[in-house]
Structure formats: structure tokens, C-alpha cells
């Protein structure tokens, strides 16, 4: 049995959730920056993309682009549609971002719970008690 597979999709989900937390934090940080456009990712498609990459790319040279498993790239970012456009070109809606951030944090912790469950399951299997 492969240990990577034992954790299933949750390991990837945790990595993506923490990256999305960073993105949402950056939206909130720029809530008062003129011209800033709020961005987010479509989590479903990002998770699909990350878990479809079955084989890791090898990097043998410093110039090679490293394997981005468990990460989304700049190309997957989308701009958020503001509910109410502001005059200075800023599209951050603080309340929406805050709600998304909290939701993301809760889902991150849910994934952690699943991982903890898997780990304790494995540990009791190893002990064989």
C-alpha cells in the first residue's frame, strides 16, 4: 500500500486551501488599494487539476519549471465580479472576502480532521492491538 494514496485527496486539498487562504488574505489586505481587482480560484476545478497529475515532473536543471502539484498557478486565477463597482476601480468586497476566508479556514480544518482520522486508523492498524 502506498502511503501517499492512504491520505487520498485530503493532502492535496489542504495544500490548495492554504494557498487559497493566502490569496483571500491578499484580497482583504488590498481592500483600500485603488484599482486592485479581487481574485479567487474555482476550487473544484483546481482540485480536479491537482489530483489528475498522477506523475510528478522531474527537474534536472535549475531552469526547469518545478512540479506544481498541490499548487494552483497564476493562469487559474479568476477575477471576482463585484456586487457594487467602486469609483476607484477596486473590486474588493470586504464582507464577501471575509466570509470566503472563514469558509476556507473551516474547510481547511475539516480536511485536517479527515487526515487525523486516516492517521489514527493507520496507527491502530500498525499496532494490531
Amino acid at each position, binding site marked *: 500500500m502506498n502511503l501517499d494514496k492512504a491520505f487520498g485527496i485530503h493532502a492535496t486539498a*489542504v*495544500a490548495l486551501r*492554504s*494557498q487559497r*487562504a*493566502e*490569496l*483571500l*488574505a*491578499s484580497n*482583504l*489586505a*488590498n*481592500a*483600500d*488599494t*485603488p484599482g*486592485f481587482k479581487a*481574485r479567487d*480560484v474555482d476550487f473544484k476545478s483546481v482540485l480536479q487539476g491537482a489530483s489528475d497529475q498522477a506523475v510528478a515532473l522531474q527537474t534536472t536543471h535549475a531552469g526547469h519549471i518545478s512540479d*506544481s502539484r498541490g*499548487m*494552483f*498557478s*497564476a493562469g*487559474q*486565477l479568476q477575477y471576482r465580479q463585484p456586487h457594487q463597482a467602486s469609483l476607484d476601480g477596486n473590486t474588493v468586497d*470586504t464582507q464577501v472576502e*471575509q466570509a470566503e*476566508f*472563514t469558509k476556507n*479556514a473551516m474547510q*481547511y*480544518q475539516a480536511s*485536517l480532521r479527515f*487526515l*487525523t482520522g486516516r*492517521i*489514527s486508523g493507520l*496507527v491502530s492498524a500498525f499496532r494490531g492491538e
Partner: protein
Amino acid sequence: MSLFRVFEISGSAMSAQTTRLNVTASNMANADSVSSSIEQTYRARHPVFQSLLNAESLISNGESAGVQVAGIVESQAPLQMQYRPEHPMANEEGNIFLPNVNIVEEMANMISASRSYQSNVEVVNAAKQMMLRTLSLGQ
């Protein structure tokens, strides 16, 4: 790791909002600083925010950005001139100049800055909780 960057990003925003609060405090403190010439009169100041993309984030982390204060600009709104010959600061014609600080605008600015600061503090707290939970994974 991405969660560490949250501290940097929210930290930069907190520092920018502190600058904004500082500038607002300075404007409100000087709202009644009169002077005898246009050049010497205090003008309302406002910080200009700019998002701060760093090279590291461009490559690996999907372009998340902090915020920085690009500069502080002085308001170009006209100053108030009053004819008050008895005032000790009055010039030869008996006029004094009042700053172009709009107290109501500054109060709104102050509330907005403190709310933004608070929301960044909450983000830092949430990120800290997430990291602590991750550290205790499997226990």
C-alpha cells in the same frame, strides 16, 4: 509555505492602515492651525495605497499581493481665507488662512482605517489557528 505568507500580507496591510490612521490624526490635530500666508498653511494629507507584488509570489504562489503606501499627497482643495484683523496671526490685510481639512471626511476615513485594520487582525488570527491545528495533526 503559503500560510506564512498570510502573515506578511496582512502585516503589510496593517502597517499601511496604521500610516493612514497616523495621517488622519495629523489632519484632525491640525484642523484649526491657522497661518498668515497661503504657503505656510497646513494642507490635508492623504496616503496613496499600492499593491506590493513580490518576485517570490509571482513565481510560485499565484500572484498574491501585500499592500504598501506609495506616497502621501497633499490635498489641492482651496484654503479658507477669513478677515480677522484682531487675530494675532493676521497678515497686513487682516486675513488669516485656515487649513482645507474636512473633519467629517477625516472621521469617516478614521473609521474605515480602523475597520480594515481589524479585519486584517482577524485574518492573522485565523491563519494562526490553521497553522496550530496543522502542527497538532495526527495527535
